[in-house]
């Protein structure tokens, strides 16, 4: 017969039996130890979401170029030695807002733009704001007659990738893609941030294309249900400066 009466009996409002203290110390120490290991493991083992981010260290930046509003506001800089095709810088407002409203009257015109850069890989975006903000260019001489990029057709394409909001993907958030970020991505897109299509490649960095509808206009509303999913889209690709624009038919979208 077991002698239960000899086992220590714990009552919370009485002094804890000495025989239990050592056991409880081991339990508490064990749980704290496992907690520490768990915390380290979950941080160290998570995916690396790259080095995209705001370029706060570069300070406030100003650029002068040609503004194009469709499908989404993009600033085009004239070609130079580093970018012989010219340079495209998609634009966002502060927070989860685009700049379509303030850009509408300046479509196709020379503009000065000020703000802070975001960068992922070799793709820049400018968050417009501050003293210069978005205004007609005060000194057009830097453009040297540049009037904007020509569109060069690349061809019909069926691509597989993820629909993202360009601002978060290019560095406002890390990760700025995937299911956990879908809520934020949709808010950004609803707010007017340009959507982009990210084609992941096994042999190199992802290819990033600005999305448009078949007519070259905005396509946000038709894609909101399908952000942050791995999908297939068909359409035509064209090049504007160093930016690829993917004109898609949302009806061709397939979940993969």
């Amino acid at each position, binding site marked *: 017969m077991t002698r239960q009466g000899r086992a220590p009996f714990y009552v*919370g*409002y009485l002094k804890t039996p000495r025989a239990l203290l050592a056991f409880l110390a081991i339990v508490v120490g064990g749980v704290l130890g496992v907690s520490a290991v768990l915390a380290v493991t*979950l*941080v160290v083992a998570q995916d690396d979401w790259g080095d995209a981010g705001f370029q706060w260290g570069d300070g406030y930046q100003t650029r002068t170029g040609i503004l194009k509003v469709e499908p989404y506001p993009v600033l085009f800089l004239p070609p130079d030695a580093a970018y012989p095709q010219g340079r495209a810088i998609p634009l966002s407002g502060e927070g989860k807002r685009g700049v379509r409203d303030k850009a509408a009257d300046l479509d196709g015109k020379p503009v000065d733009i000020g703000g802070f850069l975001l960068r992922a890989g070799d793709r820049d975006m400018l968050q417009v704001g501050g003293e210069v903000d978005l205004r007609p260019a005060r000194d057009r001489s830097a453009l040297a007659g540049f009037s904007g990029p020509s569109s060069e057709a690349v061809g019909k394409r069926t691509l597989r990738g993820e629909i993202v909001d360009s601002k978060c993907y290019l560095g406002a958030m890390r*990760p700025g893609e995937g299911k956990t970020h879908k809520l934020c991505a949709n808010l950004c897109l609803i707010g007017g941030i340009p959507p982009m299509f990210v084609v992941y490649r096994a042999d190199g960095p992802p290819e990033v294309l600005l999305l448009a509808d078949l007519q070259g206009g905005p396509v946000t509303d038709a894609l909101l249900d399908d952000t942050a999913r791995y999908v297939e889209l068909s359409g035509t690709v064209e090049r504007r400066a160093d930016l690829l624009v993917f004109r898609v038919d949302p009806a061709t979208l397939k979940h993969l």
Partner: protein
Amino acid sequence: MSVRYRPVQWNRSKVVYDTCLGVGVALYLLIYLRWAPGLVEPPLIGGAELRMRAFGTCAFWMLTLILCIGPLARLDRRFLPVLYNRRHFGVLTFFVAVAHLYTVLGWYTAFSPIDPWVALLGSNTDLSFLGFPFEWLGIAALTVLFAMAATSHDFWLAFLTPPVWKRLHMLVYAAYGLVVMHVTLGVLQAEASLAYGAMIGISLAVVAGLHVVAGRVEARRDTAPVSDADGWVQVARIDELEDGVGRTVTLPGGERAAVFRHGDKISALSNACAHQNGPLGEGRILDGCVTCPWHGFQYDPETGRAPAPFTEKVATYRLRRDGDRLLIDPRALPPGTRTEPVRLAEAVS
């Protein structure tokens, strides 16, 4: 036990318990947010995202531990001190989960003209399985945790009655299921790392495994009742009863009674404590009272009443001896009914 309600009836055990909880949560968050990111250069994810994951994984880890306490205490009574203040553990888990939600609202739904709650609940409209708005599952789990935290005080236990309160707090299993799906359809869809999947898998295996093992052990303890012709059930041989230590008897219909030898007398009362249905039969006699092993609620073994000025009471049972056998009438008497104890001197004579 208390005759009036206080926010918290502090005692040394609760202070130590809560200190351990606070140290544990602080340690986890400090390591997750301050120390561990320095081990990978540059940090793998953004600061706000790191805070979301720190609070989220901490709450999940705490919920896992909470669900392990019950079966562990059934398997080994030395875990009962961990059970004693489990409600504070649950309330703290709720607040850590709220911190997780707060970081989400302060980042993913911030900087937008749309109301954060509208954004949280309405931005994802993909209702396919893998695309399902996992945020809804998290909110549902947090709602359950809120209901439990808000009703954790003994006032609500008395107001709702123990059976209703117990049922409400059993929803912790629903909350756990919702959190598992929240993580599975959320971060597991975004992270290729095996760490988060392993965390969920191990948690599920441990929680489910402990419950199955504890259930089997419990079932083995439940010996089939042996009844006499008149329906009275055999408890034990008189000389098997240890002074001051309870014995649990399973009655026809599945009810359980707790039988205690206290000095030269033997009495029986319901096995379910009036406080939280704690197993009185696993308790002891302290200061002449049956004492519940969970929270120390006490009852007079002959009346089933808590000593004055306390008012709790449990059902009692009649006992009789048959030679060296002790028998119990399986028909419970109304809570607080005095019964004549079986005298040990008579029994062994």
